[in-house]
C-alpha cells in the first residue's frame, strides 16, 4: 500500500531540511576557509589589522550571544568578561610568561572564577533586573581597575604587554597574529556550536522561552544560567586575551558600561541566537566604524541611529534576514 500523501510530504520536508542543513554547513565551511585564506589573497596589512580586531570582537559578541540569544539573559555588563580578561592575561604575560596557551588559560580560569561568584548572585534575576544588575557589577569591576593602581596601573592602564609566543616562538604582528585569531575564532565557534546543539543548549532555549515553565518541568534554571554565564565569560576571556596582545596594553575604559552597550549592539545587529550573526555584526561594526569615523565626525549619531532602526525593524539582525533569504532558497515545502 502506498504511503499517504501526507506522510510522503513530510518525508520530503525532512529531506529538504536536511539538504538545507548540509548546504548551510558547506557555506559555513566555505566562510571559515575564506577567513583563513584572507592573508593569502593579497589583502593589505591594514585590512588584516582591522579584520583581526573584528574577529576578536566576533568572539566576544558570540560569547554574549550565549546569554542574550540562547538563554534570554540580556547582560548590560558584558564588558566585564572582556576587560577583566585583558588585565588577567596582560598582567600574566608581562610578569610571568607570554605563552599564548598559558595566558589564555589564566584569563579563562580567572574569568570563570569571577563569573562563578557573580553568577551566584545574578542568576537569581532575569529580564531588566538582570541587565541592570550586570551593569552594576561591571561598574564595580571598572572602579576596582581604576583604584587598584599597584596591580592595574590605574587609569594609565597596562603599558607594554609583549607579543604572545606559541610553542616558544613569538607570534609576529600582522598576518601571523591574524591567523592565530582566525583559528581561535573557528575553534570557539565549533565548540560553542556543539554546546548550543547539545541537550544542555536545548534546555537553555526552554529557559529563554519561559523561565517559570522551565522550572515547573523540573529544570534547574539557576544552575543552567550559572553554567552558561561561566561559559560565556570564559569565551569573552579568550577574546580579551587576544585583544590585550593585539593592543599591547589594557585600559580600564574597556570595562566601562558604554563598552557593554557597544557589544550588546553588535550582537543584536548581527542577529542573536545564531552564533554566526554576532561575528558578522562585529565585522560590520569594526569596518563601518573605521570608515565613518575617518570620513565624518558623526559616529555617535550614526551608531545610535543604526541601533535604533535595527531594534525597531530587524530584531533578528543581519543573520535573521540572511536566514530568511536562505530559507526561501531552500524551502521546506515547495
Amino acid at each position: 500500500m502506498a504511503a499517504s500523501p501526507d506522510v510522503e510530504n513530510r518525508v520530503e520536508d525532512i529531506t529538504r531540511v536536511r539538504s538545507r542543513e548540509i548546504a548551510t554547513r558547506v557555506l559555513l565551511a566555505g566562510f571559515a576557509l575564506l577567513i583563513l585564506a584572507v592573508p593569502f589573497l593579497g589583502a593589505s596589512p591594514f585590512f588584516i589589522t582591522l579584520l583581526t580586531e573584528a574577529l576578536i570582537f566576533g568572539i566576544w559578541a558570540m560569547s554574549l550571544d550565549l546569554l542574550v540569544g540562547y538563554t534570554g539573559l540580556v547582560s548590560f555588563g558584558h564588558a566585564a568578561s572582556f576587560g577583566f580578561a585583558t588585565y588577567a592575561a596582560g598582567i600574566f604575560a608581562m610578569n610571568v610568561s607570554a605563552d599564548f596557551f598559558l595566558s589564555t588559560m589564566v584569563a579563562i580560569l580567572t574569568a570563570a572564577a569571577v563569573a562563578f561568584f557573580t553568577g551566584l548572585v545574578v542568576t537569581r534575576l532575569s529580564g531588566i533586573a538582570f541587565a541592570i544588575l550586570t551593569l552594576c557589577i561591571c561598574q564595580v569591576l571598572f572602579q576596582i581597575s581604576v583604584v587598584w593602581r599597584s596591580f592595574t596601573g590605574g587609569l594609565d592602564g597596562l603599558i607594554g604587554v609583549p607579543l604572545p609566543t606559541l610553542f616558544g616562538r613569538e607570534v609576529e604582528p600582522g598576518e601571523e597574529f591574524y591567523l592565530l585569531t582566525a583559528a581561535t575564532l573557528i575553534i570557539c565557534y565549533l565548540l560553542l556550536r556543539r554546546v548550543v546543539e547539545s541537550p544542555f543548549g536545548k534546555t537553555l532555549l526552554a529557559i529563554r522561552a519561559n523561565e517559570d515553565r522551565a522550572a515547573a518541568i523540573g529544570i534547574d534554571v539557576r544552575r543552567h544560567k550559572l553554567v552558561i554565564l561561566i561559559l560565556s565569560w570564559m569565551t569573552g576571556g579568550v577574546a580579551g586575551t587576544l585583544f590585550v596582545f593585539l593592543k599591547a596594553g589594557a585600559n580600564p575604559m574597556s570595562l566601562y558600561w558604554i563598552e557593554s552597550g557597544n557589544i550588546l549592539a553588535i550582537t543584536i545587529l548581527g542577529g542573536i541566537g545564531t552564533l554566526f550573526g554576532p561575528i558578522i555584526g562585529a565585522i560590520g561594526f569594526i569596518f563601518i566604524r573605521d570608515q565613518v569615523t575617518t570620513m565624518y565626525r558623526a559616529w555617535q549619531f550614526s551608531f545610535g541611529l543604526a541601533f535604533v532602526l535595527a531594534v525597531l525593524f530587524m530584531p533578528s539582525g543581519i543573520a535573521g534576514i540572511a536566514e530568511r533569504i536562505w530559507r526561501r532558497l531552500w524551502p521546506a515545502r515547495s
Partner: protein
Amino acid sequence: MDWNFLFVNSLNGIIYGSFLALTSLGLSLVFGLGRVVNFAHGVLYALGGYFFIIFLPSLGWSAMLFAPLVVVPLAIAMEWLTIAPIRNRDEIYTLLVTFGLSFMITGAIEYLWGTETTLIKPPVIFQGTVDILGNQFPVYRLFASTLSLLVTGLVFVFIQFTPVGLKIRAITDDNEMAEALGINTRWLLTSIFGGAAGFAAFAGALGAPIFSVEPEMGMGIIIDSFLAVILGGLGHLPGTAVGAFIVALAKSIGGGYIAEWAIAVLFLVVAAIMVLRPKGVFGRGRIA
C-alpha cells in the same frame, strides 16, 4: 570624630539628593506605568539644559519653564516613533531602543551646538554663599534643591489625590485590569512619558548654573538616577525619592571618608539590595 565635616557632607548629600529625586522621578514613573526603562532620560535632561541656554538671552530666567515646554513635544514624538511600536515586545527592547536614542541625541547635540561647555551664572539674587553653622553654602544650590523638593512633592500630591493620579496608580498596579476598567492607557502612557521628559528637562535647566551645560551631561546623571530608582523599587515614587537621598548621601559622605572607593561600594550595595530585596528597600515597587 569631626561632626562638622559629617554635617557638611550630609547637607551636600541632601542638596544633591533632592536634585536627584527630581531627575529620577520621571524615570520611575515611566517604568512603573509603561514598563519602559528609559535610558534616554539623561539626554532629555541634557536637552533641557541646552534649550534653557538658548532661550536665556531672550527670555531671561523664565527660560527655565520654557525649556521643558519644547522638550515635552519632542519626547512625545520620540515615544510615538520608537517606543509605542515595540510596546508589546519584551520590555528589555525599550532599554535597547532608548540606549540607541541616547547615543543619537548626544551626537545630534554635538552636531547642532558643538562640544563646548557653557557656564551659566545663577541669577543675581541667588549668587554668593550663606553661612550655616560656620560653613559656606551656595545660595543657588539651596534654592535649587528646595525647588526640586517642591516639584517632587507636587507630583506626589498629584498622583495621590487627583483622578488622573488614581488612573496612573491603577495602571502601575495592574495594567490589564486598568484597561479592562476603561482607562485609556495608550493616551496616559504617552502623556506620562511627555511629563516625565518635562521634569527631566526642567532638572537640566535648574542644574545648569551648578553643573554647566555640555553634550554628555546626561550620561552622569542617568546612572545615579537609575541607582536611585532601583533602590526605591521600580515604579514606587516615595521609594524613588528615598533612593535618591541614599545615593546622594552615599556619594557625599562616602566620598568624604573613603573617597575613590565610595562608588564601588555604592554599586555593591545596590547590587545587594536588588538581590535581597528585589522590590526595593520598602518592598513596595514592582518586581524588577
